């Protein structure tokens, strides 16, 4: 099994996700520089968090035009598993591999905290190790995590069960109060219709370490591992 983690200028969660992947997949992912024209054969491609290109112009906009992205788009269309975390999610929406876009947090501040999430879709290839509607705790750290799409797109996403994670409180209540950044319908993570591409704003790679205190991210990576095997 081969995993590629794409590194853009300004990515800064690449090492973090590589460590988590190694823990679960028991192998070192390949770190692929964004300027490469070809991608090593990969079963899983990860676009990590960070501030690619400083988040200048729009988050993920310039990374989405990197040389490596055309290969990644092809792989995505062919069914390769792709995960985009935080800045990675932003890049996936900029390339249209996922619908919608991420805009500035409603309250205009950067937010870094642990948040309860509801696993809305525990049948997906990325979440089947979670139980239905499980409430988990995963940290967020972003300034532009507000998921937006027009009404038609949102309806499509909801109707087809493409919402994987939603922001809630520890009792699972989903409303404006439990929405940290203004995302439509408290959406924290979605998959594409084919079911092989996932984008999420929270950082599961920051929840795989008992010493640091959070482990709900482990089941996420284990789900992907088992789906690929």
């Amino acid at each position, binding site marked *: 099994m081969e995993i590629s983690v794409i590194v853009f200028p*300004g990515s*800064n969660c690449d090492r973090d996700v590589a*460590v988590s992947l190694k823990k679960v997949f028991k192998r070192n992912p390949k770190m692929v520089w964004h300027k490469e024209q070809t991608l090593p054969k990969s079963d899983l491609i990860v676009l990590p968090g960070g*501030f690619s290109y*400083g988040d200048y112009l729009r988050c993920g906009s310039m990374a989405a035009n990197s040389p490596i992205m055309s290969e990644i788009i092809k792989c995505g269309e062919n069914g390769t598993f792709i995960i985009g975390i935080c800045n990675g999610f932003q890049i996936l929406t900029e390339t249209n591999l996922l619908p919608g876009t991420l805009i500035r947090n409603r309250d205009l501040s*950067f937010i*870094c905290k642990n948040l309860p999430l509801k696993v809305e879709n525990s049948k997906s290839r990325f979440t089947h190790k979670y139980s239905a509607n499980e409430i988990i705790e995963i*940290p967020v*750290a972003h300034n532009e995590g507000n998921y937006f799409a027009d009404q038609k797109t949102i309806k499509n996403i909801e109707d087809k069960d493409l919402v994987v994670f939603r922001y809630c409180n520890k009792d699972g209540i989903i409303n404006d109060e439990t929405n940290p950044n203004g995302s439509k319908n408290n959406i924290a993570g979605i998959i594409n219709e084919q079911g092989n591409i996932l984008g999420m704003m929270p950082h599961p790679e920051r929840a795989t370490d008992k*010493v640091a205190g959070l482990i709900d991210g482990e089941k996420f990576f284990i789900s992907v591992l088992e789906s690929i095997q």
Partner: protein
Amino acid sequence: MIKITKELIDEHGINEKEYSFILESLGREPTITELGIFSAMWSEHCSYKSSKTWLKKLPTSNDKVIQGPGENAGVIDLGDGDAAVFKMESHNHPSYIEPYQGAATGVGGIMRDVFTMGARPVALLNSLRFGDINHSKTKHLLTGVVSGIGGYGNCMGVPTVGGEVEFNACYNDNILVNAMCVGIAKINKIFYSKASGIGNSVVYVGSKTGRDGIHGATMASAEFDDSSDEKRPTVQVGDPFAEKLLLEACLELMKEDIIIAIQDMGAAGLTSSAVEMASKGNVGIDLNLDKLPCREALMTAYEMMLSESQERMLMIIEPEKEKEAKSVFDKWGLDFATIGVLTNTNNIVIKHESEIKADIPLNILESGAPSYNRPYKIVTNPEVDQSYLLKSDKKIIDILKKLISSPNLCSRRWVWEQYDHMVMNDTILRPGGDSAIIRVHGTNKALAVCSDSTPRYCAADPTEGGKQAVAESWRNITSVGAKPIAITDCMNFGNPEKEEIMGQFAGVINGMVEACEILDYPVVSGNVSLYNETNGKGINPTPAIGGVGLLESLDHFSTPNFKRKNDNIIILGDTKGHLCQSVFAYEIFGDSQGLPPKVDLILEKKTGDLVRNLVTKLKIDTVHDISDGGLLIALTEMSISGEIGFQLNIDKSNLNYSFLFGEDQGRYIISIEDKNLNDAIEYIEKSNISYLSIGKTNGKKIKIDRDNEIDIEELRDLYENWFKSYLKSN
């Protein structure tokens, strides 16, 4: 040719005596570029002219110190081939003028000081001080500074894990922004700034040079007056994306044996880097400014030498290795230009457009650097009888509610939730505790880091305040179970030309010297910021202390939150009930008379060593030191963070303000399960440290006595909501 007039010399901050020295040493009048170079190198910021003689007294070594003051940052040995590299620096004046960019570039600058030595930055902390909450500029400065720190640090992907925020009217027009960075390097791969090798290339890397911040170093040394708003164009603008590229490029190149010496360009830009690197190495340096990457057209030699454009480094490399080095910087999209060469002349020679714009023997810059022995008078408050502070009929619970929701004691969550404090996945203990804990990546050991100062103590008694600043840092590191190793300091003071202010500096240093010695906690790096005064009114003496300690194993460390119901709560150390200079006195009586609590350094050490052993040997997992606000505030913090209440069980004679809110030093609160109690008490008694059992943890209430009870949730709301409501209001 620009004519050197008296006005020009004055504008450059050079006095008559200094100018005569220049004339005599050069044997002629200086050029304008040379005048700029002298001005920058002899400014307070670069030469430490008012503080040098005092700073020399500070202890700077112990068996773990590899590099003390004198380099870009200090270096300590962590064992197993690892080293920590750290420093704190001020960016006060620019942050007042443009809070976002001032704070952001402060963070950028301090990170460069750390990674220039080969260390990957792993933690950022900051000490922030703003004016009175009702002062017209405070909100704007607070939000701007916090945004700027977050904006830069988050983009760099380095977690901001600790710090302090204080509001006090003395900082109304002179806010303080002190930024600290800690990095980790391999002990055999530390890079220094000493240039060597005649004929070696002087290479510039990073962002292009513009007109940013020209005269920033001299601005840092000049007082503000009412025309300060006009100084806006001199503030630098930071580009954290460029710095992230620079960080990765430098660390990549540092894996090879190519860089001979390296220094970042900070205050006084290319001038200070070139002069300092060459002087340290006892070599001359020739610069050809035609090769300098510029982003503005028609820059003069003067401008190029003094520009404080950010995100730039200066390196010394062998000419044969240039190509390989350039390829790394090309990959990361950064400028790489050979702009000079090391010579055997021991002069700094600057050429531009076929003219020699400067030619100065480096030893003149060094030997001529002013060093003042300013007259000083150490003034302390008269002692007062504190019994007037006991005269109130306010209920203890009401006082607790007022204090826990006061601007200087309430939760700083609003601040640190704007900082990514988790990136790099090694933050084991987050902001909000006594120290943050950062794992050394890939190992089971960790650093404990914190930043502290109690300026009101220093104002009342500089020497005792200096002792306390170091002691509190030492306690905060000890509280998590770590061994304090060394400190960095940021000395923020008013106008040193005033006897009393110079006396504050002298007194604080004297206190620090004593504490550093007895606690074996030396200063390995630091910074001085003077002239923090506006219209003649100065700030409280503020020695911000950045502490670093080592946790040998993450298997045992302690945190302040209560963990279990029915734990026994014990105070280690003596409570005498000292109320003068306490937050209680200030908030409840509006009073700041009298002296601060005394620090008994020998007892501090003994008590702290006991605490550390309790954590590492007896596995005690809950510790909090007692500082601002006293015992009841510390207990409340432990309660709120753990969501577990407590019931006090103390002698009626101690149910008074002095016992509950006094700020006696050298005390810790520990919380122990019943099953471990006997062993712990036995251990404590053997150490001869006084202790007092004061109650037990329990359900969701805080119970002081029958008349003083409150739900934790009510206190939590008061504790957590101050910042939000402050910023919402007009």
